[in-house]
């Protein structure tokens, strides 16, 4: 199928973008196009104006200051996948990226686009959730920073207003040597996850869990924090029993049922993947169970 006709705009600065968005009716922002363009080809999305961010100055790049990694919204998934900074300071993201589409789509897909599209099974939002990322959003009205837990409002709906764009994502980094693991189950390599899990963990030399973060994707409207699992870990000695108990907490959810999997099956996957990511994350900080 072919997309419906639209007007095309190629602004060069964030100011130009926000000026356009403040005045245009029924406009949509184009980042890497790997989710938006299929929807346009299917005519799920019909817009009067496309505002392409590809030529906007200063929207791409990775920098680290004061324990935070700042990623420009137009940074391509490929750049993140091959970035030494990401591999070193945010290895969870690097591992998750290997599940994001295929090399041919990661070459164009962007982190900002992935967050704005907000597919409930998408990997990058799950990583941002696990890191308690802050999303920087700009419009003519000013700049605001939203914590990730206030970003996803409903199914494929975010806090971004029609006149706003995401300009950057800030990830608070975990201490060096932290454990991390991303794992997912999908029918075919590169598909969206039926269920995915992201775990970050810090375990001290006495095997006590100092810090833990567990998020699931594919089970709700967006990345789901498993607070009970985190509570079952923090302050406890890490062993197989602790990991099992935390994973069991991940099962106490009510996931969606759809053509890909039943709610029951997703609940089963949630427990299995929570356990595997906990086990693998712990192993990466030197604790084998």
């Amino acid at each position, binding site marked *: 199928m072919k997309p*419906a006709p639209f*007007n095309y705009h190629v602004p060069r600065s964030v100011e130009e973008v926000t000026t356009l968005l403040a005045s245009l009716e029924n406009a949509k922002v184009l980042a890497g196009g790997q989710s938006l363009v299929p929807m346009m080809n299917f005519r799920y999305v019909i817009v009067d104006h496309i505002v392409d961010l590809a030529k906007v100055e200063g929207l791409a790049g990775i920098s680290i200051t004061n324990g935070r990694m700042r990623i420009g919204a137009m940074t391509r998934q490929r750049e993140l996948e091959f970035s030494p900074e990401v591999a070193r300071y945010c290895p969870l993201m690097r591992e998750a990226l290997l599940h994001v589409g295929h090399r041919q789509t990661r070459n164009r897909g962007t982190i900002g686009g992935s967050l704005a599209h907000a597919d409930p099974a998408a990997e990058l939002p799950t990583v941002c959730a696990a890191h308690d990322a802050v999303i920087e959003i700009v419009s003519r009205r000013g700049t605001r920073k939203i914590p990730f837990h206030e970003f996803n409002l409903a199914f494929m709906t975010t806090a971004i207003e029609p006149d706003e764009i995401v300009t950057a994502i800030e990830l608070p980094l975990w201490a060096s040597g932290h454990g991390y693991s991303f794992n997912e189950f999908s029918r075919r390599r590169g598909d969206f996850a039926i269920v995915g899990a992201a775990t970050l963990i810090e375990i001290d030399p006495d095997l006590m869990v100092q810090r833990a973060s567990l998020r699931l994707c594919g089970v709700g409207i967006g990345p789901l924090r498993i607070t009970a699992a985190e509570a079952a870990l923090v302050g406890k000695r890490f062993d197989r029993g602790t990991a099992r108990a935390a994973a069991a907490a991940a099962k106490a959810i009510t996931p969606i049922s759809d053509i890909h999997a039943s709610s029951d099956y997703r609940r089963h996957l949630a427990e299995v993947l929570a356990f595997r990511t906990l086990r693998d994350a712990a192993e990466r900080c030197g604790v084998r169970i």
Partner: protein
Amino acid sequence: MAKRSISLKVNGRLYEQDVEPRLTLVDFLRNELDLTGTHVGCEHGVCGACTVLIDGRSARSCLTFAVQADGCELMTVEGLAPADGELGVLQQAFRDQHGLQCGFCTPGMLMSLTELLRDNPDPSEEEVRDVLTGNLCRCTGYAGAVAAALEAARRLRTQRGA
């Protein structure tokens, strides 16, 4: 909707043309430039038949509008053969190793692998398979295509060493 003027290089040749913004790059290549080697499959980024190189990076040409390629350098399957009637190294390896049957997915596979072999002259079978997950093939079961990619890598290394 107003047409826009774009200028881009495809396989080393400069083209300047006025296009409708909604025209996808694959339709531009096939219908405006008559470069029909790039195939249109699913038109929503899943099958990979339309894969081309945009500024050296593999991409779905059904998920890119021609206007986005303004100022870019493209390479399509037509750019692989050294001369009319001859085959490039990767193409020859596909022929020798039975890397194709119906041939519909082949242009996309060739472009994905062209990028891989340029970035990594000695890829593992695992890496080849990873890259080819982005190109659906319903005939071969991939064994021939993987063998062809590894064979082409060997031949290219020998060529360079010689």
